[in-house]
């Protein structure tokens, strides 16, 4: 079961230009990913939009494994700032979970 909390999405939007809602789940971003993450960015973005805080924390390894190299963004047909969105998820975890 996913616990949804809209405040989380609002917090992410307040960090910066968190544009995960532009993602239409095509999966093109994963074609070139050098890390080969276990979880797709689109799934992480759905968690964020839903405000599924527990799921975001659960996937923190994947979130911190992203290289922020932006190769994925070269493939994105919607111009999602994938790497910057991931960095903002890190910021959310660092502040809320790690108290940093």
């Amino acid at each position: 079961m996913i616990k949804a909390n809209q405040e989380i999405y609002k917090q992410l939007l307040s960090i910066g230009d968190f544009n995960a809602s532009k993602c239409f789940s095509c999966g093109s971003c994963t074609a070139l990913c050098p890390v080969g993450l276990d979880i797709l960015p689109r799934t992480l973005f759905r968690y964020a939009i839903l405000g599924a805080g527990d799921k975001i924390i659960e996937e923190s390894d994947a979130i911190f494994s992203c290289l922020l190299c932006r190769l994925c963004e070269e493939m994105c047909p919607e111009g999602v700032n994938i790497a910057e969105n991931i960095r903002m998820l890190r910021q959310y975890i660092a502040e809320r979970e790690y108290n940093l």
Partner: protein
Amino acid sequence: MNSAMTNSRMDGNLNKMSSNMNMDNNKNAQTDRKCHILSMLSQNLSIRRSAFPLSSISLTAWARGLDIRRGGSAVLYTGHMYQMIPYLKGAQKRQSAIKEVSDKMMPIARLINPFLNLTGIMSLFSANKNDIKRYNGYLRNIAVILKKCGIEFGYLYGLEDYAGTLLYDMGVYNAFERHADRVFRRLKRLGIKTVITVEPHTTEMFKKIYPMAVDGFDIEAVTYLELLEHALKSNGNIFSHINNAQKRQKKAVWVHDSCVYARHLDMDGIIASLLKKTGIEPLIPYYGGRLTHCCGGPIEALFPEKTSQIAKRRIEHFKKGENEGDNGHIPVVTACPICHLNLHEAVSDKTVVEDVSNVFINDMRIM
């Protein structure tokens, strides 16, 4: 039969539960590990003004004997990156040798670190002398190239700060923001108007991130590569010592563009273009230029094993492009010390990984 099935199902459930608990424990351990590492990096930045604090002697040794003036309105800004590499490499080797112990000690280390520079202790005597000489040499090359271009610049020596890249990338924004503000205030106090950067990460900080993060940030950032390009446009004879015989041989090198230069700063192609102007043939690998492949470096602090796998995969891209007989004789050049470290460590044959400044110095004979 039924009882046996029930028992077996119960065993299965118990095994599943136990495996889930193990997975949870592993996940918790990973989470704690990340938290401890990020905490210590944040402490280092707040207390010691660097994620990986080193002594002033180690940071400024490269400039010895180069007669670079102290300060001035334009300064060469190393951002400590080239200087850190030999120590990072040494500290990581030590840490991986005692991984289990060091993971267990993390919570204590995090408590002690504010009072005792543990990163400094971890890196003490860890750097290989040849590595120090190599990476300091790259900085010396860059200073010489700038001088050759007729550019006047100073250096802040012990007053230069680390820019805070790692903390920004890892999302530790509060510590980063405070640090960036301090760096800016110091630069202003010292009268700095332009910083000449030498690698992509510090360049991105000053060109893109500081202007967003720091109120009133108005310091110009320019890379030495851009200055070299500009100088070549206005004076094509800068490299007048090019050896013609060498030019005829048409030496070729693989170009590994850094992700940050290529996609964050839209500077893909600058290395290839500079190499062309100096008579060297730039070879663009599978995944090159704008679509360059990461070296794995950005996650090295948290997931060194993944970094190593990614770097090895990157080296394969150069191998794929080799002709029969090349056999690792074509050097790979990069303009990023982190890429250099990871690719250099990933090579398993004779392939040489060089900083592009070394190619300029050696092959263009500008000294």
